[in-house]
């Protein structure tokens, strides 16, 4: 038998699964004991080097990274103090010193202790901060001007390869944080930097390093949303009238992306970032449609400011989200449950917006349809939650429904007394439904045990 290509790395969970399953296969007479041993051996061997060299748990590594983070921050603060008395030469030397030391530590880690995750993580974090400290101190010593944006971009460009070369999870999170910072800071498509991180995220996806992948996806998609909304929905933006449709299309695409990546049955809130964020966007934007006064996309390019790189990037993303969502629906619609249909039918509003641009719909069309959509959608979600015994779906439907009622109710001049009563009724409905649902679940489980 040729075992040349059989050294496969599997996670402890996968190995555990294989152990229990192979025991069953043996009991069922499908395989012999020696075949089982060979099978397990084949995977164990691949698992061994990683396991033995990983002398630290993730908790340790987290603490070590935190320590490095604090040291890095301390170095920046020490240098920010501005040692005027030292003179330019000494200060220049001092600004390069942490950088060279951090580089040396990284090199030592790779050369001498390639399997020590703790050393790799901590040296990578130190290098990350040493780069910032060096640029900052040089700028300070020589009065080199440049706004925060430029500083962050240079820092990002000089440290992004660290993620790949040192495979550092902490630096990945720090880099994601800087991109998020840039997305909140400027109306530029800084989310494009995430493209550079995509191969790494894909690797995490393949290696089933789900925890890191989920957090990275949350930050990346959150940054993308902020950047697109901030970069398109402001008064003089040429895309201002389209921002609501672009955001909704993005929400639908996120929703589809989550299910495409993790499967339609995977609906845990934290561990399916794209779908969860997609649902939040769809819920929020659909509520915005229920108001009058939202601008219809009649004038495509406003005259105040011309189209730039940011606008073209957002438009390209818009087209991408339209195509992706349409393809996802076309390919998977046979497997959709009611909740999938409820979420993805909001895509119709994007299409309606596009058609409305050419045919000039009356705004009432959007307002009436969106009110109906939320009313029907939320009730369907609540029923689904009850039928499928899922509290999250039930509460999601309830929140959506309640927000619709509250919004409608703020539209008109209703006296405070009635407003108060409605708040009390909605609040009581929430508590009562949740208590009733919990009791129903308990009764079911008792019935099942009996």
């Amino acid at each position: 038998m040729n075992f040349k290509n059989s050294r496969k790395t599997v996670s402890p969970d996968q190995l555990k699964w294989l152990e229990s399953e192979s025991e069953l296969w043996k009991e069922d007479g499908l395989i012999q004991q020696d075949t089982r041993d060979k099978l397990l051996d084949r995977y164990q061997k691949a698992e061994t080097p990683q396991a033995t060299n990983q002398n630290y748990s993730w908790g340790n590594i987290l603490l070590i990274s935190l320590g490095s983070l604090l040291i890095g921050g301390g170095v920046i603060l020490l240098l920010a103090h501005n040692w005027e008395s030292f003179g330019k030469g000494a200060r220049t030397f001092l600004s390069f010193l942490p950088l060279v030391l951090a580089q040396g530590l990284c090199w030592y880690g790779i050369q001498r202790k390639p399997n020590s995750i703790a050393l790799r993580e901590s040296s990578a974090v130190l290098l990350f901060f040493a780069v910032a400290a060096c640029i900052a101190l040089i700028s300070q010593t020589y009065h080199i001007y440049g706004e925060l944006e430029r500083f962050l971009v240079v820092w990002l460009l000089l440290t992004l390869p660290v993620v790949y070369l040192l495979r550092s999870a902490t630096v990945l999170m720090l880099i994601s944080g800087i991109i998020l910072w840039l997305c909140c800071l400027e109306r530029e498509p800084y989310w494009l930097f995430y493209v550079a991180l995509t191969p790494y995220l894909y690797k995490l996806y393949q290696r089933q390093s789900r925890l890191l992948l989920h957090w990275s996806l949350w930050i990346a998609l959150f940054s993308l949303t902020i950047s697109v909304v901030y970069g398109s929905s402001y008064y003089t933006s040429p895309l201002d009238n389209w921002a609501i449709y672009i955001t909704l299309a993005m929400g639908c695409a996120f929703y589809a992306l989550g299910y495409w990546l993790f499967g339609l049955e995977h609906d845990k809130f934290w561990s399916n970032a794209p779908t969860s964020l997609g649902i939040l966007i769809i819920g929020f934007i659909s509520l915005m449609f229920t108001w009058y006064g939202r601008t219809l996309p009649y004038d495509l390019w406003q005259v105040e400011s011309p189209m730039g790189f940011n606008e073209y990037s957002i438009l390209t993303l818009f087209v991408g989200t339209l195509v992706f969502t349409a393809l996802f629906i076309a390919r998977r619609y046979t497997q959709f449950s009611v909740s999938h249909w409820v979420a993805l039918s909001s895509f119709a509003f994007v299409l309606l917006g596009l058609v409305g641009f050419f045919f000039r719909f009356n705004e009432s069309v959007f307002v009436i349809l969106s009110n109906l959509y939320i009313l029907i959608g939320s009730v369907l979600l609540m029923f689904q939650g009850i039928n499928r015994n899922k509290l999250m779906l039930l509460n999601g439907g309830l929140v959506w429904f309640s927000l619709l009622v509250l919004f409608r109710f703020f539209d008109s001049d209703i006296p405070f007394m009635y407003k108060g009563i409605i708040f009390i009724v909605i609040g009581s409905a929430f508590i009562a439904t949740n208590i009733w649902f919990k009791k129903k679940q308990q009764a079911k489980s008792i019935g099942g045990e009996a």
Partner: protein
Amino acid sequence: MKTSKLLLLILCVVQLAVPGYMIYEQNQILSEGKVYKFKTQPIDPYDPFRGRYVTLTYKVNAEPVPSEEDLRRGEWVYALLGKDEAGFAIFTNLVTEKPVSDQNHIKLKVGWGGSEGGYYVEVPFNRYYASEDTAPKIERAVWRRETVDDVYAEIRVLDGKAALKELYVDELPIREFIKKNGVN
């Protein structure tokens, strides 16, 4: 493994080269650039990374600069440099094409304005770094004065780039001025 080591080595070199080039470029402007005096008024803010500094608000910031061209806010342009009667720097015009003659200029961003009334500009060299002790003293030294006519920044200009050399009060470098006048 060999490739990743080589790439790490290249990354280290680039990480050292970028700040190295920043120093080289700044030194080149300071040694070869033409001197301009910009009237200014410093105030004292703070940067989480680069520490304490004084923001320099220039007189050229306060007046719109004429331009025959239709410029957009945030657009990069070349501000042509001149001097007023007292010998202080002023911007005479804003153009989008890089001047080919010996005309000294600075590349900067356009702020609000229009081709009729002129444009406000964003002067880039608006930070003078100082220690936590010195920065507030600089601010106090300047704010105590009734006029700020005698406060200016010496800027060197070379090929569209500018570098701040020193901040002067009463023709004295700011630190000397603080020492001499005993500003606390």
